[in-house]
């Protein structure tokens, strides 16, 4: 019996001590180092415009519908790009609902961008991402949207494509992952160009 209580003591004390070390000290040390070395990134890579207004995060997508903006991917996070409700559609390959929404997205995409009714559409443009917050679209997707954006803004397509290139991120180290165009930073860059 004495041995049993000794073991209980071991279990209770180890839980408490490890909680203090692993859940108190450890995150605080990481917090300290992170805030000191990478202040901007540790706080969400936030974008603040010259007037001091917080416009979003470089890492989180936002929804755009106007012709003058590049459009993000469809999103299943809340009402669309809601960072407090992240997630995907979770529809399987034989889902009728997924089929219908992709069909609708394809029709909309072709109409918005003046594509032929049988033109292939980039997969990322008509499917929801895993997080619902994907900040990127594929380069091909951006290239197809560029003429529409250029027309709506009275800019040359070359100028718009130049901005697309300067807002393209990845692949990391030249070979990891896929290149992606950051939609929010691209659209903000377009806005500030027009404001000049």
């Amino acid at each position, binding site marked *: 019996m004495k041995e049993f209580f*000794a073991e*209980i*003591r*071991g*279990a209770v*004390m180890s*839980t408490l*001590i490890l*909680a203090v*070390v*692993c*859940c*108190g000290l450890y995150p605080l*040390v*990481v*917090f300290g180092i*992170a*805030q000191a070395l*990478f202040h901007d*990134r*540790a*706080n*969400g*890579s*936030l974008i603040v415009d010259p007037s001091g207004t917080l416009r*979003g*995060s470089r890492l989180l997508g936002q929804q755009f519908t106007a012709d003058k903006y590049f459009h993000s991917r469809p999103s299943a996070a809340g*009402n669309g790009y*809601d*960072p*407090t*409700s*992240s*997630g*995907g*559609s*979770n*529809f*399987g390959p*034989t*889902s009728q609902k*997924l*089929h219908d929404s*992709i069909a609708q997205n394809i029709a909309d995409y072709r109409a918005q961008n003046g594509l032929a009714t049988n033109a*292939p559409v*980039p*997969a*990322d443009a008509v*499917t929801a*991402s*895993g*997080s619902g917050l*994907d900040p*990127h679209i594929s380069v091909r997707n951006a290239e197809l949207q560029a003429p529409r954006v250029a027309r709506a803004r009275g800019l040359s397509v070359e100028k718009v494509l130049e901005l697309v290139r300067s807002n393209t991120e*990845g*692949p990391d180290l030249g070979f*990891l992952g*896929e290149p992606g165009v950051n939609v929010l930073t691209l*659209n*903000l860059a377009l806005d500030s160009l027009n404001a000049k």
Partner: protein
Amino acid sequence: MHSIDWLQLSVFVGVLALITKPMGLYLVRVLDARGKTWLDPVLKPLERLTYWAMGVKPDQEQGWKQYTFAMLLFSLVSCLFTYAILRFQHLLPLNPQGFGPVSPDLAFNTAVSFVTNTNWQSYGGESTMSYLSQMVALVIHNFTSAATGIALAAALVRGIARHTAQTIGNFWVDLVRITYYLLLPICLVVAVFLVSQGMIQNFKPYTKAKLTEPYTIQVPKTDDKGQPVTTNVAVLVQAPKLDEKGQPVMTNGVAMMVDVPKLDEKGQPAMTNVPVMVDQKVEEQAIAQGPVASQIAIKMLGTNGGGFFNANASHPFENPTPLSNFIQMLSIFTIGSGLTYYLGRMTKNQAHGWSVWSAMMLLFLGGVLLCWWAESRGNPIHQQLGVAVADGNMEGKEVRFGIFNSALFATVTTDASCGAVNSMHDSFTALGGFVPLFNMQLGEIIIGGVGAGLYGMLVFVVLAVFIAGLMVGRTPEYLGKKIQSYEVKMAMLALLVLALSILGFAAWASVSQWGLAGLNNSGPHGLSEILYAFSSANGNNGSAFAGLNANTPWYNTTIGLAMLIGRFLMIVPIMAMAGSLAQKKIVPLSAGTFPVSGFTFVLLLLGTVLLVGALNFLPCLTLGPIVEHFQTLLGKLY
């Protein structure tokens, strides 16, 4: 399947092979109570203080029963600790969003989920858990359940390596040393690196950003007391449209349908209350914050997998770049891979360690190739609609990871019992989703969960040696120990528990109202969702075909039980086997001894793993992903 993707795969396997030996050598020091490490000057005083507070004598070893009992007791106490915090989080500090207490069934499910190293998430982190719940109640298990798994693997290896011994180590010493010397230092480095990639680490409440393009949504109208406003409307039903003569109107041979008011028994129109909807303009984006990086480092290293956010490692704050993705995948495999080297070193048969590693790697590569091929081929149903064929299946995947890194991550996370996801497995193609499902059903022995992967694989090694012995008609031996009926019985028990629990619970759910109510997809994919849930729970994986709404009292409870069975009912026979092996004498090698290294052994081990997995699970997989694959080719929809 581009050449650059092959390069990424080679780099991943190459780096893993390179770190296996150093990790194994470090494990030898950490798992020896008197081992010296270069962290001793900092950590030795802390280690001594911890033993003193716990009342543990570090040089006193335990027999297998004592060791197992200590482990079970620790799991129970720490599980209750977590349950209590979740139930009382509204009274505790660090709750800036003001979340209420977690419901009893969800708290049970979550506490069990984390104590068993499963980290199945019935909850959405950013909408349910206070920072304290995440940081303390959940993270403590990320460390201790991982340490427990590694400790058990070490105890089994000691049982194999020792002879005529009564003890297999001291659980408390293993627990403390693994946490302090192995997990904490690596996590510290990885966490800081992840922050450098854009992962957040702060304690701020959610930040509000002004949207560039505000939009309008429909929300239920509320009165000044906050109660929803409803209106009384007639219930409508569909009925065939009739022409003047009372004949149904047909279009192309199908009756046209119109909405008509539903009538009750008295012939009166039936009425119902529906909420009044109003437009609401959304002008802000609420950016979730929190201490993410410190939690993600241990989530990966300890093969826990429970994310800070609902979308797990697909969330940009939880996996910002392809580089952070690479480091996270590597973290999942690091310790499990090193443990195979530890096995070789401790049993003085390094070729055996590498042979086990090779068998694991072959199974891993098979899984990656199948999943990657299936996902890059895409879904013919959607391609017929006009989706570009070359792009593959992007539903549920992030652009920055693309097809290859999503398929690789899905394979890694289910080879190990990690369960983090960087893409939604539910939306994979039928064969792409088959890979993670089958990986879990094999028992997660391909590198596997930290510790759990090795002791799971050693069960198969014992079986393989036994089968080889049967084939040549000799008493089987494993590293100089006779494998007798007791060991084989214990190995079979561990395997049968897994199959019985997965298939039993899945069968129950698929014929019950509560089981079907949670489905997001119907047809064979619905069965896959259920099968995946219980495979994940039993395998202590924690990933999901996440469309399944499992946050219901029935699912929370059955999945909780499956997690307990999958962890502890498997561990007890394995520890019994360790105790029995430790007591045995060494038999000298002879010409009839089956070598446990080399090509023949690897092949035999692979055969055993695949045969057991296939016999147990192929029938139900045929009804799920396999039939679904053919239906996708035919264009059948549900």
